């Protein structure tokens, strides 16, 4: 549905996007993840036909942006970083204007505008001037504009920025509903958003693609070894040595101790599940096994690993970033 090949964008001597390639299949939701200034917005602006690439090609909905930009734009809805609202128009006037320039047939313009307002929950503000909307409403009116006409491709630049937690949830729900019929690219620097809504992630840093994979694969791929968290009531004994002696276990570190209950992090060889052995060993000694769960690297860890230089993960060997990345928590 979207095909980007060797895309490069330079502003004078500054290279904002450096030879990136990726494809998005129909019905996918692709998360575009990266620190501020990584080139997310630039890539999206190229994909929406706002600006041409310096090098490379992009095909959106089957139309090359270079040869058939109008056809590609007709099939794309775009929410820019700052919602492009006209302050003097009311929400309804604004959306009707958007419907007109998007070339929606006159007969169902009104219905389309109303349904877009319903979906983004801005109908109660239909008669209000855009200038007087709160940040959350602005963002959602911008989203309504992108959804107008049900375009095949949706490109959303930080769709949840400026929303409160409830609105964020609603917006994510809305985006999830789009999966299947629509192809969505959304950019964000909020990590839980990606694991919650996206089917695939492109991590981009300093204008280069650092990793492309599903959120699950990314986290597991970068684990290197499997780690289990075990909580044992060892009746005063030290379980560490016992567990370290088991086959397949490479390392045991104490995590916490409280009232005689010991928490341990047990690392094992990659691909080897030692849970059964651990449980058998603990129960066999008459200790209490209170908790046993795999510890997974969060996407946050993956992201930091990929976008900072200290990383020693193999997948991040080509990363040139030096700055510490600021990760937004919710």
């Amino acid at each position, binding site marked *: 549905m979207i095909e980007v090949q060797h895309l490069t*964008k330079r502003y004078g001597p500054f290279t*904002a996007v450096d030879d990136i390639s990726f494809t998005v299949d129909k019905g996918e939701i692709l998360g575009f993840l990266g620190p501020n200034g990584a080139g997310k917005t630039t890539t999206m*602006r190229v994909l929406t036909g*706002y600006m041409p690439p310096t090098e490379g090609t992009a095909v959106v909905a089957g139309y090359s942006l270079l040869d058939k930009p109008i056809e590609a734009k007709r099939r794309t809805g*775009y929410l820019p*970083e700052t919602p492009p609202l006209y302050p003097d128009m009311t929400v309804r006037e604004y959306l009707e*204007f958007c419907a*007109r320039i998007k070339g929606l047939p006159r007969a169902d313009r009104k219905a389309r505008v109303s349904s877009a307002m319903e979906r983004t929950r801005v109908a109660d503000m239909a008669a209000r001037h855009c200038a007087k909307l709160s940040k959350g409403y602005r963002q959602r009116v911008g989203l309504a504009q992108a959804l107008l006409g049900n375009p095949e491709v949706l490109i959303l630049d930080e769709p949840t920025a400026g929303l409160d937690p409830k609105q964020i949830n609603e917006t994510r729900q809305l985006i999830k509903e789009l999966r299947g019929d629509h192809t969505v690219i959304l950019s964000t620097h909020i990590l839980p958003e990606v694991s919650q809504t996206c089917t695939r992630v492109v991590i981009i840093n300093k204008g280069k693609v650092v990793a492309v994979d599903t959120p699950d694969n990314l986290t597991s791929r970068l684990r290197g070894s499997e780690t289990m968290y075990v909580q044992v009531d060892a009746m005063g004994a030290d379980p560490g040595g016992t567990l370290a002696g088991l086959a397949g276990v490479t390392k045991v570190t104490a995590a916490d101790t409280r009232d005689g209950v010991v928490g341990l992090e047990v690392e094992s060889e990659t691909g080897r599940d030692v849970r059964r052995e651990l449980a058998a060993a603990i129960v066999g000694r008459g200790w209490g096994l209170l908790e046993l769960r795999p510890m997974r690297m969060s996407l946050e860890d993956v992201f930091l690993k990929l976008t900072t230089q200290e990383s020693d993960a193999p997948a991040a060997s080509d990363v040139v970033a030096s700055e510490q990345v600021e990760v937004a928590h919710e």
Partner: protein
Amino acid sequence: MSNILAIARKELSAYFASPIAYVVIGFFALMFGFFFYSLLLYFDRQSLQAAGQAVNVNEQFLRPVFLNATVIFLFVLPLVTMRTYSEEKRSGTIELLLTAPLTDLQIILGKFLGAMGLYAAMLAITLVHVGLLFVFGNPEWRPVVTTYLGLLLMGGCFISVGLLISSLTKNQIVAGMITFGVFLMLWVINWIASFMGPTTQQVLNYLSITDHLDDFTKGIIDTKHLVYYVSFITFGLFLTARSVDTERWRG
């Protein structure tokens, strides 16, 4: 075409949603009314002094009124055009237009027509004055029609230049000031013509935007002037299109 009209409608309603349209039209109406009145007093005295000789309302009254009125456009049209692109660039709404299935030309023509609409509204006010003249006098209608045609074309030139300058900057004030300067220059450029060599003189006279209006106010439609105005407008809009395109590449 419907795309162009959609943009034009949006531009026009933006003028009327903000104070711009009212200030510009109000100021113009005031000034034009004053011009009309003072020249009417002057014409009145002239006809008394002519004592029985035929005086021509078109030639001796309407023509000077409209030629003088062009100076008002010099002041108010920069206020009309300065926001067209600058404001969209500053607020980011240009992103909406450039990513919509519109060509640059449609956007530019839409903005041009929107500004022309406001200009036409200003001219429409003068119909009141001219109408009074038809009620109380008997001017010829043909030169009046050609005068309006000439004024529309002249305004089109100003607006196309204004659009171009607005597309070059994010700052409205800068756009307005430069537009005013350029208008003024196009206005006075033939003042020095008579001091120049024959070729330069011709070129300078030809460049002056208002010089070409003269024949229209006499009731003459000369293709020379039509060609000048139409090619001026086309060139202005063409340069605007290039400017918008360059902006895209630069990002």
